[in-house]
């Protein structure tokens, strides 16, 4: 039986802009199906549990709070289908496509909230940040979704600046795809925070498609128990003078598994590029697992690039130093893990940093004592 036969019927409402996409999606699903462990990009992440019934679409779980300066727009047709099987599944089954456009300098954040439900949902959203516009976008994934397969398309026009905070605290299954297209001198800053979840997968793709575009991608993830998270990041330098930074850190405890796969590709057309990748992981238990693979592909001579990945335990010297000063072992561990997580959070707007901090603290040893530590000393 092919995947398409097992899929539930297409949703009743058919947004006209979706028609072409949906056809492409069906074609892709028919030829490729859902990934197995033999699919390179899904080697460490199994989606075997996602079968016909689990995939049946229920009502949307997305709520949007748009500030002044952001409005809904109609689009005749949508851009090409993003790569990946779940983007195709989303296109095949989504019943809504929200297209928003931000103009000017928008002071309040645009907030998207996805509440996981006991049925699958396929929210789909496109956000355009107009020429010279500035916006903060906050996405929150909460609850315990049977499956949330969310597709987000971000278009930054020339000189646009977008700060994107994505907080994934859905305890269930969340598969997300974010694709970013950047215009000339535009800047995209992302803070992707993944705290647990049975299965969390994010494909983040950034195209530096016009001269002088830059992106700064920061992320933090934490898994414990039998949680599983997988971040696939790809940055394409397709135009000259592009800059990309990737700073991701993660902690794996219990039997949790974290996967980090990142590519930075400097194309022949992407000279004078600067591309940096860093991924550091703390392995807190011998049963936890981390798979990390940052890689650079450079097809041009004039490039400044660096990449590195580490997986290690908590530093014994630091732990002993703290304990020798009277700090109990649990709290000392909490302090060190907390400090490790700090860097990817820097630059995040305060309100969200606090929210993430809270979520992070709840997962750390000696969390109460740690929270007291946060009190400012002047």
């Amino acid at each position, binding site marked *: 039986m092919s995947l398409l036969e097992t899929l539930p019927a297409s949703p009743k409402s058919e947004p006209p802009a979706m028609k072409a996409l949906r056809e492409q999606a069906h074609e892709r699903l028919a030829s490729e199906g859902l990934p197995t462990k033999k699919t390179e990009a899904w080697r460490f992440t199994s989606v075997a549990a996602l079968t016909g019934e689990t995939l049946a679409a229920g009502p949307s779980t997305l709520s949007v709070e748009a500030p002044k300066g952001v409005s809904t727009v109609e689009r005749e047709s949508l851009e090409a289908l993003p790569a990946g099987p779940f983007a195709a599944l989303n296109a095949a089954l989504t019943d809504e496509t929200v297209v928003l456009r931000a103009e000017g300098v928008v002071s309040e954040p645009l907030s998207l909230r996805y509440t996981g439900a006991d049925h699958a949902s396929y929210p789909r959203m496109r956000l355009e940040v107009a020429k010279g516009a500035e916006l903060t976008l906050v996405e929150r994934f909460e609850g315990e979704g049977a499956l949330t397969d969310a597709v987000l398309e971000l278009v930054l026009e020339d000189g646009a600046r977008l700060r994107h905070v994505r907080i994934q605290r859905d305890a269930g299954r969340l598969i997300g795809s974010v694709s970013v297209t950047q215009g000339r001198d535009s800047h995209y800053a992302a803070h992707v925070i993944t705290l647990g979840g049975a299965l969390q997968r994010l494909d983040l793709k950034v195209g530096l498609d016009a001269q002088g575009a830059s992106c700064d991608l920061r992320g933090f993830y934490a898994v414990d128990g039998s949680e599983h998270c997988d971040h696939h990041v790809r940055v394409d330098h397709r135009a000259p003078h592009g800059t990309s930074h990737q700073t991701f850190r993660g902690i794996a405890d219990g039997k949790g598994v974290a996967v980090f796969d990142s590519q930075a590709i400097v194309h022949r057309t992407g000279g004078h590029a600067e591309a940096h990748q860093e991924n550091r992981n703390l392995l807190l238990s011998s049963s936890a697992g981390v798979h990390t693979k940052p890689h650079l592909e450079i097809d041009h001579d004039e490039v400044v690039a660096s990449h590195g990945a580490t997986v290690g335990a908590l*530093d*014994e*010297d*630091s732990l*002993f*130093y*703290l*304990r*020798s*000063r*009277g*700090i*109990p*072992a649990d*709290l*000392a561990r909490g*302090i*060190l893990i*907390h*400090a*490790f997580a*700090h*860097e990817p959070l820097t630059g995040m707007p305060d309100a969200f940093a606090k929210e993430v901090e809270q979520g992070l603290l709840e997962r750390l040893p000696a969390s109460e*004592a740690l929270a007291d*530590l946060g*009190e*400012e*000393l*002047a």
Partner: protein
Amino acid sequence: MLKIENLHASVDGKEILRGLTLEVPAGEVHAIMGPNGSGKSTLSYVLAGREGYEVTEGSVSFGGEDLLDMDPEERAALGVFLAFQYPVAIPGVSNLQFLRTALNSIRKAKGEEELNAAQFMKLAREKAKLVELKPELMKRAVNHGFSGGEKKRNEIFQMAMLEPSLAILDETDSGLDIDALKIVSQGVNALRGPERSMLVITHYQRLLDHIVPDVVHVLMDGRIVHSGDKDLALRLENEGYEQVRAEARA
């Protein structure tokens, strides 16, 4: 008082301390000098409770309590403080928050009231003057980006804040220029008192010009081979360890 009896300790199966016996009465400053590899740093780590140092024989008590049974944090609560030879940098943890957590953890363990932010800051400002630690360093991440001298001052600053009853200074003089050495020594001397024992571990006699010890011990091959007054340090410097040991045997 610190009482070490016939202490044997191994690292990775290799015996480093081989029957070390030593007593430091309350209020006294004892220096331990010895060549490289004699077991100086091992002794300081064993006293502070570092993992990986296996005590195979002997005993260590402080104030009548068995130290060897305790976790490092329990020893700290009892009043043991180790000034590290190589203080650890901990990015992301502010010096002040670290120290307040340490101080309050110790106070809590002793059943004393914890200090609030204002009380703590008042104390920190006062103690920082002892070692001329710049206020901006107190706020920075622990030892992160500190020069060698700043790290050692920070150790003594921590010691001043935690007010230990047994301070172990592990080669606190290493890497210091003479000005920094004087400042650190002044800080240490200001902390001398009738209730506080100090064990000053060093490779060089120079430090002992500034922190004058009551007793000097010579540590070689994991044992104390000779003890004497402060002049012994000078003789070690001039005549060398082997000469002093040979005379001690004779």
